């Protein structure tokens, strides 16, 4: 679960602390440590808003703008989800983060036999534009940006988002969507992949290329170290792999003849926060610096604002426990504190009941309040990068920087990130680490409150979200209605054009938008890709 390893002597004094990334923490840090690492304010930190952005991307940090609150939300039908969106917004949430059900994530319509039992279960079901019309009804899409947690079929959902925005009268240039759209990490962890590596990365390239002109405020990818860490990676690997994955997407778009400054500024990231607080803060500070340096030195990026590592830091799912679930509320508060101390642009938290199932409105609002009270009561907006200059934090940031580079080097040596994912090299590595962590928890070598220390005999029951079978029936009924009412000639025409464009290797985005507007279904569009691209051959190793 990612806590540090502590060695103690007979008197219970700590003799060693080893962070998950493998860095040893000393009992005391002083000026000599900064000297030893050759610390230079200008080179290693610089002021906030200045290259290499270690201290943050904005000169005034949270004074100029608070972090966006964006709880992961969605279940059942689009109507139920729309109601929950509005509830969260009415409680002060400032962005949306849409959860899709598994059939949607895997490109199946709700009436597909593969979808049986899964419709609307872990997110909202989406079959056609009609569902987006319901889900985003009465939400100001010019004001509220939407994270779309979708990967294999992110291109289709981004097209659908544009279609719904236009239908509701919002220009393409005012809407801000952030589809997750990171397929390489799905292949490492989380597993919602469909197509093989090459066409899957090509689709991501299509969304980035398309967004340059058509969706200028959209962030077409959100590279997720998050799920890689959930799968067993260390914080250093989380950042390192994410940078390498982002580079793979950059390379795809560069090969189309674009200037890197034309698109890379819209990249965003999603990182995890659980475990040792100092290690989290240091990883983000080091991550910002390395991303900026990577862009400047490897890709020749010129514009400062294109080198920002912008991201959603939070979640912390793996840190939560089934045992003593209310402790997860406190855990979430500390994770949010770490994210805020590290200068996150957006924070979301897993809710305390998520070790059981998706959150209730009650638990989701507790998470939102956790973020709000940190923002408004605790002074986290007072000053930018408050931990800067600490002998410890600066030393650790430097050590994390070196560790991250080391992890990136290992992958380069294994043939590069795409190769390491296709062969299962990374999957095997993180699964082995996950097993070692789990053994550490079970042996008590890694401490986890309520799990291996301060345990209770009595399991605690919490009120849980209940799955509603009627939602699935309603969804399938709605899909049938759309199919009855739509103009089938338009559907056939737009799907045929999509098929042709896919075969010819063209950018599929404009064709997807037309399909969506004609109410072609997600399943119909995905089937075209499945037939032409085939499916990813998973190296199912452990």
């Amino acid at each position, binding site marked *: 679960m990612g806590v540090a390893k502590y060695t103690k002597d007979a008197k219970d004094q700590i003799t060693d602390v080893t962070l998950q990334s493998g860095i040893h923490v000393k009992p005391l840090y002083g000026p000599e440590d900064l000297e030893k690492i050759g610390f230079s304010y200008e080179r290693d930190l610089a002021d906030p808003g200045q290259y290499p952005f270690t201290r943050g991307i904005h000169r005034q940090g949270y004074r100029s703008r608070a972090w966006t609150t964006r709880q992961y939300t969605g279940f059942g039908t689009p109507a139920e989800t729309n109601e929950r969106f509005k509830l969260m917004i009415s409680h002060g949430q400032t962005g949306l983060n849409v959860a899709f059900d598994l059939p949607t994530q895997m490109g199946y319509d709700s009436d597909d036999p593969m979808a049986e039992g*899964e419709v609307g279960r872990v997110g909202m079901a989406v079959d056609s534009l009609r569902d987006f019309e319901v889900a985003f009804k009465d939400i100001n899409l010019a004001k509220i940006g939407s994270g779309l947690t979708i990967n294999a079929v992110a291109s289709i959902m981004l097209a659908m988002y544009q279609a719904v925005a236009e239908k509701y009268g919002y220009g393409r240039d005012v809407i801000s969507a952030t589809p997750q759209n990171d397929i390489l990490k799905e292949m490492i962890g*989380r597993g919602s992949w469909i197509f093989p590596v090459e066409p899957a990365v090509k689709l991501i390239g299509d969304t980035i290329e398309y967004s340059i002109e058509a969706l200028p405020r959209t962030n077409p990818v959100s590279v997720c170290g998050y799920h890689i860490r959930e*799968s067993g990676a260390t914080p250093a690997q989380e950042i390192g792999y994410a940078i390498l994955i982002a580079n793979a997407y950059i390379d795809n778009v560069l090969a189309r003849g674009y200037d890197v400054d034309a698109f890379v500024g819209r990249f965003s990231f999603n990182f995890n926060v659980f475990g040792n607080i100092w290690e989290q803060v240091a990883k983000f500070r080091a991550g910002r610096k390395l991303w900026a340096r990577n862009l400047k030195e490897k890709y020749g990026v010129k514009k400062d604002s294109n080198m920002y590592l912008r991201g959603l830091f939070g979640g912390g799912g793996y840190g939560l426990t089934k045992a003593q679930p209310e402790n997860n509320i406190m855990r979430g508060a500390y994770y949010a504190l770490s994210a805020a101390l590290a200068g996150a642009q957006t924070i979301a938290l897993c809710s305390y009941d998520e070790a059981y199932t998706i959150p209730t409105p009650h638990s989701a609002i507790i998470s939102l309040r956790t973020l709000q009270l940190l923002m408004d009561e605790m002074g986290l907006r007072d000053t930018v990068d408050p931990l800067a200059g600490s002998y410890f934090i600066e030393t650790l940031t430097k050590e994390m920087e070196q560790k991250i580079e080391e992890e990136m080097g290992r992958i380069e040596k294994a043939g590069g990130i795409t190769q390491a994912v296709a062969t299962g090299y990374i999957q095997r590595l993180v699964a082995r680490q996950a097993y070692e962590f*789990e053994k550490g928890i079970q042996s008590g070598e890694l401490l986890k409150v309520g799990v291996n220390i301060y345990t209770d005999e009595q399991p605690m029951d919490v009120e849980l979200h209940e799955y509603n079978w009627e939602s699935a029936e309603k969804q399938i009924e709605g899909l049938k209605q759309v199919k009855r009412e739509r103009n089938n000639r338009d559907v056939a025409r737009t799907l045929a054009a999509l098929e042709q464009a896919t075969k010819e290797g063209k950018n599929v985005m404009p064709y997807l938008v037309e399909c969506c507007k004609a109410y072609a279904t997600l399943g119909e569009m995905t089937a075209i890709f499945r037939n032409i691209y085939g499916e990813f051959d998973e190296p*199912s*190793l*452990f």
Partner: protein
Amino acid sequence: MKNQREIKVLVAKPGLDGHDRGAKVVAHALKEAGMEVIYTGLHRTVDQIVRIAIQEDVDIIGLSIMSGAHIPIVEKLMKKVGQEGIGDKMVIVGGVIPNKDIARLENLGVSGVFPGGTPFSDIVTFINDHVKQA
């Protein structure tokens, strides 16, 4: 006969859920406990899982389910297991399983339910005891 050879376990990921950390971690643990482990990989249908169980002649089918769809998946699997006449194979379930569903799964014919966080030793002991009895 069975206790004269290694216990053979199929670790399966049914349905569309792609969270495989738990499945792989348990696969490692069972292997280290001396069992032969076959892992199906992701996104398997119930029919595929039952087919692999028959082909590989496993003793145990272990399902890892994190999506909340454990009841419909297990219903379908137990039906298929009955149809194929492999009711002698023990079915166990792990994953994100709320406490109140444990009895329901057992009523459907699941021999053991091991929610996330269960110590490996509990799973290993359970399998050893039950396969030997069979």
